[in-house]
C-alpha cells in the first residue's frame, strides 16, 4: 500500500467513524436517559448514568399498562404474520411458476405494489369506517385482519423472488414420482425456500410491529393498543415522564435491534424490498 492509499483509507475509516457515531449516539442517549434517576435526568448532559436504576422500567410495567401493550403486539403480530405468510407464499408460488392469461400476473403485481405504496393515512380513514360498521374497532381481531392483508403484499414480493431461484427440476421430478402440485410445493419447494421464508417472516414481524398510524386510529384502549401506540400515549400528557418514555422507546426498539444483529445478511434484502436484487 502506498502512502497515498494509506492516507486515503485513514480518511475513509474516519468518515465512517463519524457516520456511525451520528447513527448510534441518539440510541445511546435514549438508553442512558432510561437508566437514570429522575433527578439525574435533569442535571445536565451526562453520557453515562450517574447512578444506574431500573426504576423507569418498573414504572413502565406497573403504571402504564405496558404489559398489555406487549401482549397485544405479540398476539396481533404473530397471527397476522402467520396468515399472510400462508396466503402470500401460495400466491408467490403461482406467480413464480405459472404463465397466466388475461394479464392476471401484471394485475396481481400492481396490486402488490399499490398496497406497498399507499400511505397509512389513506387506508385508515376508510378502514375506520368499515371496522366501525362491523364492530371491530378497538379489537385485536380487527388489527390482525388488516395487518394480514397489508403484509401479504410484502410476502408475495419477497417469496416470488426466492422461489424463482429454486430450480424447477426437483419438484418436477417429485411430480413425476406421483406427488400432486400442492404436495410438491409442501415437501420440496417450502423446505428449499426455508431461508427466504425465515427472512420474510422476520421482516414481516418488523414492519407489522413498527406500524403506528393504523393501530393509532383503529384502537382506543389498552385492550387492543400495540407497543408503538403505547409509547405515544406516554407523550400526549401535559407533563412528560421522560424516564418511562425513554424506557418505552428502549423496549419498543429492542426486539428489532436484536433481529438486525442476528440476521445481518438477509436483513439487507428485505429492507430494500427487492427494489434492487
Amino acid at each position, binding site marked *: 500500500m502506498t502512502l497515498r492509499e494509506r492516507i486515503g483509507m485513514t480518511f475513509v475509516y474516519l468518515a465512517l467513524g463519524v457516520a456511525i457515531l451520528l*447513527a448510534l449516539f441518539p*440510541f445511546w442517549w435514549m438508553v442512558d436517559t432510561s437508566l437514570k434517576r429522575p433527578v439525574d435526568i435533569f442535571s445536565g*448532559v451526562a453520557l453515562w448514568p450517574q447512578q444506574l436504576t431500573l426504576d423507569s422500567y418498573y414504572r413502565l410495567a406497573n403504571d402504564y399498562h405496558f404489559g398489555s401493550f406487549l401482549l397485544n403486539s405479540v398476539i396481533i403480530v404473530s397471527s397476522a404474520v402467520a396468515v399472510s405468510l400462508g396466503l402470500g407464499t401460495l400466491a408467490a408460488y*403461482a406467480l413464480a411458476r405459472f404463465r397466466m392469461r388475461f394479464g392476471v400476473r401484471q394485475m396481481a403485481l400492481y396490486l402488490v*405494489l399499490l398496497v406497498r405504496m399507499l*400511505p397509512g393515512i389513506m387506508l385508515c*380513514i376508510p378502514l375506520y369506517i368499515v371496522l366501525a360498521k362491523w364492530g371491530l374497532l378497538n379489537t385485536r381481531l380487527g388489527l390482525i385482519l388488516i395487518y*394480514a392483508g397489508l403484509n401479504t403484499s410484502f410476502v408475495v414480493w419477497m417469496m416470488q423472488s426466492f422461489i424463482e431461484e429454486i430450480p424447477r427440476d426437483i419438484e418436477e421430478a417429485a411430480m413425476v414420482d406421483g406427488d400432486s402440485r400442492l404436495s410438491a410445493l409442501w415437501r420440496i419447494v417450502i423446505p428449499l425456500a426455508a431461508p427466504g421464508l425465515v427472512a420474510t417472516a422476520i421482516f414481516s414481524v418488523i414492519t407489522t410491529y413498527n406500524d403506528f398510524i393504523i393501530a393509532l386510529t383503529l384502537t382506543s384502549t389498552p385492550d387492543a393498543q400495540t407497543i408503538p401506540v403505547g409509547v405515544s400515549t406516554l407523550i400526549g400528557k401535559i407533563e412528560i415522564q421522560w424516564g418511562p418514555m425513554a424506557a418505552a422507546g428502549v423496549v419498543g426498539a429492542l426486539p428489532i435491534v436484536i433481529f438486525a444483529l442476528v440476521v445481518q445478511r438477509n436483513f439487507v434484502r428485505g429492507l430494500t424490498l427487492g427494489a434492487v436484487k
Partner: protein
Amino acid sequence: MTTATNIVVEREGRVQRLRAASVPYLLLLPAVIALAAVSLYPTLDGIRASLHRFRYGLDMGFTGGDNFTAVYNDPVFWQAIGTTALFVAFVVSIETLLGLLLALLVARELRFAGLIRVALILPMTIAPVVVGVIWRLLYASDIGVVDPLFQALGLGAPHVLAHPLSAFLGLVTVDVWEWTPLLFLIILAGLQSMPQDPLEAARVDGASALQTFFHHTLPLLRPVLLVAVVLRTIDAVGTFDQIFVLTKGGPGVSTQLISIYAYNTAFLFNQYGRAMAMLIGVLVVLILLMVAAVRLMRRSSQVIE
C-alpha cells in the same frame, strides 16, 4: 364400446386439464382478495366517502363535489401541500446525497464491513414512533443534548421544536437520520453489482477518481438512483409517525404535513369526507409515481442482472 370409452377418457382428460389450468389462479385468489380488501376497497370507499357529508362522524348522505370545493378553497390545505412538498424535496435530496456518499465509502474492502453496515442502517429498522421518542429526548430543552451542544459552541440555545423554522429543519434532520440508511443500502447494492471492467479500463487509461465517478459510475448508477428516489419520495409524502410524536404539526401549522392535516380533519373534527377529498388528490400523484417506479424497476433490474 371403444368409442364410448374414448369419449369418457377424453372428457376426463379435459376436466383434468381444466383443473390443472385453474391451479395457479386458485393459489393466487386468497392473496388477491386479501390485498384488494386492504387497498382497492379502502381506495374506492374513500372516493365514495369524499362525495358524502359527515357530521359528528355520521354519514349525512351524498353531497357531490362539495368536499372538493371546500378543500380547494381551504388555505390551510394548500399550506399543508406546500409544507409537504418542501419537506419531501429537502429530505429526499439530502438523503440521496448522503446515501451516495456513504455507499461510495463502504463499497470497498473494509475491515468489519458487516458490522459497519448494520450500525449504519440501524436507524431505519426501528419503529418511527421510537425515532420520534429518541429525538424528543435529544431536542428537549430541559433534558436534551442539542441545546447544550449549541451553547457549548457559543451559540444560543435553539429550542428546536419551539420555533416554526427550526422545528421544520429539526424534523428534516430526524427524517434524514432515519432514512439515509435506505438510500445507502439501495445505492450500495447498485454499486456492488456494477460491472467492474469499464472502471478498471478508465483507471488504466489514467482517469482520476473524480473523472471515473462522473463519467462511468454515475451513469451506470442512474437507474438504481432513480428507483431509490422514487420509492423514498412516495414514502416521504406519507410521513406521519415522527411528526405526530414530535410536533403534531406545530408550532402553529409550520410542520403540518398533509398526512397530519388529513388525520386531524378526520379524527379530531370527524370530517371523513373532507379528509378523503384531500387525500385523493395526493393519491393521484402517488399512483403516477408508482407507475414510474414500476417502469424504472423493470429497467434497472435488466441493467443489473
